[in-house]
């Protein structure tokens, strides 16, 4: 143990500070990038976003000759390019939950709310910082995934699609937007549940358990309801084609944004009311 300073008087400091939303954003940026779990989750998100399409494209390319016409028709180049988003969303969601539940499990939240006792600036700052960081870090991977998978599939004319083809740029960039929104949604869930395991389980239930359960419903009900689920609405942001029973990209995307806003609003109300 290092020795204590011989000065036992507290050095005086200029009281220039006042808590502002911008300062809380800077604080949250410091918090986010100073954790190893952040770096690992984002690294996993980037890797999965790129690796899956590359693998998918390579397998498709090598089996193309033996595939039936039906199977070939099923393979859409954009589905291949964005296959990673379906997987990496889990890494982003886990990180979104951890951004807030990590503070509850370690007790850090008490320090955060002592520094910012109005509390809400902390929630907004976390949302903004995590949203911006996840979008900026996921945009290059979706672009790389698109161009890399196209390059691997260059021998097959049927699987070629231009970035300038209507809807393609929107879908590819939409992949990064979707991941950002998934992260924000998960952050809101984390703030409501305040527990890492519970937050991840809740997210998984909403995104991976409820949608297949809808198949139990009569088809007409399923068709009517499923398109409004967060996962289905959100998926339209990065889907090129849209079925009869799914929303168009903008309505779907906006509905998903609405779900995120609702989750954050509930989190905000609870955050101010609850004891820590």
């Amino acid at each position, binding site marked *: 143990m*290092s020795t204590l300073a011989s000065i036992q008087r*507290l*050095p005086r400091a200029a009281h220039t500070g006042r808590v502002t939303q911008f*300062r809380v954003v800077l604080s*949250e940026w410091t*918090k986010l990038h100073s954790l190893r779990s952040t770096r690992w989750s984002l690294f996993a998100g980037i890797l999965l976003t790129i690796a899956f399409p590359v693998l998918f494209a390579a397998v498709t390319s090598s089996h193309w000759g033996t595939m039936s016409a039906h199977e070939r028709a099923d393979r859409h180049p954009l589905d291949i390019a964005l296959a990673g988003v379906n997987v990496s969303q889990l890494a982003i969601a886990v990180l979104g939950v951890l951004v807030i539940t990590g503070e509850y499990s370690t007790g*850090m939240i*008490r*320090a955060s709310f002592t520094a910012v006792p109005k509390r809400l600036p902390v929630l907004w700052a976390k949302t903004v910082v995590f949203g911006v960081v996840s979008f900026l870090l996921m945009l290059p991977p979706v672009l790389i995934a698109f161009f890399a998978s196209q390059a691997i599939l260059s021998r097959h004319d049927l699987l070629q699609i231009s970035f300038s083809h209507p809807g393609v740029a929107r879908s590819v960039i939409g992949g990064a937007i979707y991941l950002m929104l998934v992260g924000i949604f998960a952050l809101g869930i984390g703030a409501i549940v305040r527990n890492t395991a519970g937050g991840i389980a809740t997210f998984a239930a909403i995104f991976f358990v409820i949608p297949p359960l809808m198949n139990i419903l009569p088809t007409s009900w399923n068709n009517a309801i499923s398109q409004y689920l967060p996962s289905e609405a959100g998926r339209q942001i990065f889907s090129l084609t849209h079925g009869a029973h799914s929303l168009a990209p903008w309505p779907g995307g906006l509905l998903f944004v609405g779900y995120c806003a609702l989750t954050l609003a509930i989190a905000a109300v609870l955050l101010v*009311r609850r004891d820590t």
Partner: protein
Amino acid sequence: MIEAQGLTKDYGDKRAVDGLTFSVRPGVVTGFLGPNGSGKSTTMRLILGLDAPTGGDVTVNGKHYRDHEAPLHEVGALLEARSVHTGRSAYNHLLALARTHGIPRSRVDELIDLVGLREVAKQRAGKFSLGMGQRLGIAAALLGDPSTVMLDEPVNGLDPEGIHWMRSLLKGLAGEGRTVFVSSHLMSEMSLTADHLIVIGRGRKIADTSTSEFLSAASGNVVRLRSPQAAELSRLLVAPDVTVEALEPGYLEVHGLTAVQIGDVAAANGIALHELTPQQASLEEAFMDLTREEIEFKAAELEPEEAVA
């Protein structure tokens, strides 16, 4: 300056803090004493607005804590439970807190040196020992150069050097005119540091007094004396509410009379006294006397039936 008015907190049907009214003044160290579970930590969380009171009110420097524009300049707090992300370095922990108020990096460095964490500042706080974690908490509390310092059992986990350091730090802070509010259940520690004491038991205030008054009120009537005629004197002193105990031949401990009364009795009867010393009860004993009825978790006294079973 901390002012509480009828402060009350229920957790479910458990009343943790029960109508506390007190004020903590600047310029002195105020000790906040109470047995385990008496509501000290809860009171401190209420002061910071981390928990909302069920009833009553508490302000710091005239405002609710959450209404201050720069809370870290008003109150620096060390809470009982660790409030640090285990995955973040000590330096980044302090930096993240500093940034909420625009406090410069140089201040973070200053505090890391002050609490002696320089060599481990870049290590993850999760690896810290109890004492190191405590020092980090103290650095965080002092970050904003606060006018009120509130520490929940700050010597917990500190080595003797750290305890000594803490003592002089607290006195120094009070000497600069700050409000210093420190909880403890170590009475001996408080008797060395605190100028004023607020004692609680089961969430209720039992005493609010200066340390010296508390000590003299508590010590009072235990006197030891040495006399060649101890046996005779003993007979003269014994009364219904006075007990005399022979500690060794010629050496007595008298409960229930002051030194003045004993000296007078001896003089009136021509008995020689070789020593007459009033005993200062330790703060610990005084505290135990005071809180005997209020102790939440008494060490279990076995009932005879239970002892058999």
